[in-house]
């Protein structure tokens, strides 16, 4: 192949001035082959970049650049309508950190996140354990647990907003039926967090159970057999063998739900009609606070500071998850 391309060149050069009657088609053919080969080599060289570049160009413009530019906006006075003002240094950050609503939103976010993620992971593990048996109509069961996932968060919020109604709500009906006082779901801080967390739990538990199920199915079956021989019961097997064996998957689910959970917006935002997180902001989350600063107060500088702080908080949480799980791993190893 390589030898051919070097040999072609002189022939082609010689071919142009003279035109021998019989030789012409041949020379043309050789020339075309050489051209095609050069094209093909260029194709091989350049195509990969052409294939990946639409993604990278767009991703940098709509994904990475905005994130970086948020930092630039956050150190300026920047109005929604007025645009960029003076350089403000750390002023926006200072104002955010001095605002009691920031700390309120941070507390609410973490509280809702913990109330949603911990029960969710535990129930999903149990559910996956139930699904990881030789069920009849296995496919149907798996599909059924995924049903809530196709209901949009906005719709979930409206439905649960009604169920957790302060006056004529299904939840309070049940609470009263068992002899307790009705709960003010939209007023009491903890109650509102529970209601919002239940929306997240309802939508995501089945989804996460399927992820756990996939991991559980990769656990070799003979492990169970030897455990059964040792006299370990079903539940014992599940808690002390299955769950530890799928630890990486649990970590994966915890980290992804951390990233999503700390940005929770639609559920608390639509829990009441005002969209500010309750009369005393009992359930205003950080993303809601960001939205309020940016599009109500119209201070994009401060809103950007919140975005960066939230970014940092997410990273810290993800790292803590990693460390805790690694520590748990080494402890188990020592045992």
């Amino acid at each position, binding site marked *: 192949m390589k030898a051919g391309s070097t040999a072609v060149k002189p022939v082609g050069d010689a071919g142009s001035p003279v035109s021998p009657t019989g030789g012409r088609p041949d020379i043309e053919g050789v020339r075309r082959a050489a051209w095609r080969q050069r094209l*093909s080599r260029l*194709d091989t*060289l350049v*195509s*990969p970049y052409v*294939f*990946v570049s*639409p*993604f990278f160009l*767009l*991703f940098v413009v*709509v*994904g*990475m650049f*905005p*994130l970086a530019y*948020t930092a*630039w906006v956050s150190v300026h006075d920047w109005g929604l309508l007025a645009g960029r003002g003076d350089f403000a240094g750390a002023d926006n950050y200072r104002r955010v950190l001095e605002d009691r609503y920031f700390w309120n939103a941070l507390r609410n976010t973490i509280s809702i996140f913990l109330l949603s993620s911990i029960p969710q992971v535990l129930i999903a593990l149990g*559910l996956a354990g*139930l699904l990881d*048996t*030789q*069920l009849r109509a296995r496919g149907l069961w*798996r*599909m*059924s*647990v*995924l049903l*809530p*996932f*196709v*209901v*949009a968060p906005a*719709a979930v919020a*409206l*439905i649960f907003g*009604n169920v957790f109604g302060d006056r*004529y709500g*299904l939840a309070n009906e049940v609470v009263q039926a068992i002899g307790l006082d009705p709960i003010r779901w939209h007023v009491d801080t903890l109650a509102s967090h529970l209601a919002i967390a239940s929306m997240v739990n309802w939508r995501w538990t*089945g989804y996460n159970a399927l*992820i756990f199920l*996939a*991991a559980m199915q*990769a656990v070799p079956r003979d492990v169970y*057999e030897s455990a059964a021989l040792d006299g370990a019961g079903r539940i014992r097997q599940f808690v002390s063998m299955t769950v530890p064996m799928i630890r990486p998957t649990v970590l*994966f689910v915890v*980290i992804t739900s951390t*990233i999503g959970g700390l*940005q929770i*917006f*639609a559920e608390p935002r639509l829990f009441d*009609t005002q*969209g500010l997180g309750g009369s005393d902001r009992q359930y205003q989350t950080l993303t809601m606070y960001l*939205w309020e600063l940016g*599009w109500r107060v119209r201070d994009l500088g401060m*809103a950007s500071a919140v*975005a*960066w702080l*939230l*970014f940092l908080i997410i990273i810290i949480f993800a790292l803590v998850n990693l460390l805790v799980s690694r520590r748990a791993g080494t402890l188990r190893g020592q045992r």
Partner: protein
Amino acid sequence: MNRRPGFLVYGLLTAFVLGSCAPLYWSFLVGSHSRDVLTKRVPPLIPGGHFWDNAQRAFEAVPFWKALGNSLIVSGTIATSVVFFSTLAGFAFAKLAFKGRTPLLVFLVATLAVPTQLGVIPLFIVMAKLGWVGSLWALIVPGMVTAFGVFFMRQYLLDAVPDELIDAARVDGCSMFRTFWNVAVPAARPAAGILWLFTFMASWTDFFWPLIVLPASNPTVQIALQQLQSGYYVDYSLVLAGTTVATIPLLVLFILTGRQMVAGIMQGAVKG
């Protein structure tokens, strides 16, 4: 192996599935009763006969059909675009040798966990400069690629396309793009279908960004739902009738493709 489940397992699963369905039934139930019933008490557990009236009122209260059309256009375009660009880039990462492949791939994986949603403020500033605030372009353009999509397709194509097949196509004189089109695309179809579904769903259910850039007159379904509930007094018969109708498109999609969704989640879990 004695892992045949007993009544307890079936009972617990049934309870869970009932819990999964209950809120949807509740939504339909409330939407099917008249406003008068709901102002007095919790409705009876048997549906009333006002569902269509309530839904009709919901369609009048907000531009519901327009919202449905907008959501279809936005989510359909985004899903198709993500699948195309992801397959293209995923193919290059999985199967083609080029300088800088490894660092670019590392960059890609590193960005998987970055919450790009936090870039909304500059994105809004740019959209305002372009004059796109209020139009569907503001939703479509930022959603056209995802790092996850590229990674997902790369992982799939790594095993799905044998290298010999690519070499053979090249020897036969196929250009790179034709090789991609004739060899990689057919092989990628199962994964592409799953990626399309999940991208469509994510875009359809998105609330935060549409709320920022779309006006009340040109909403997506989620924004229309939000408008149903504005004001101090909430008429739940109207709100939940609208919510029920708004949930139907994804329910239909779920009934048609639920199996693929389950397979997609379980595959992603094993590979990711």
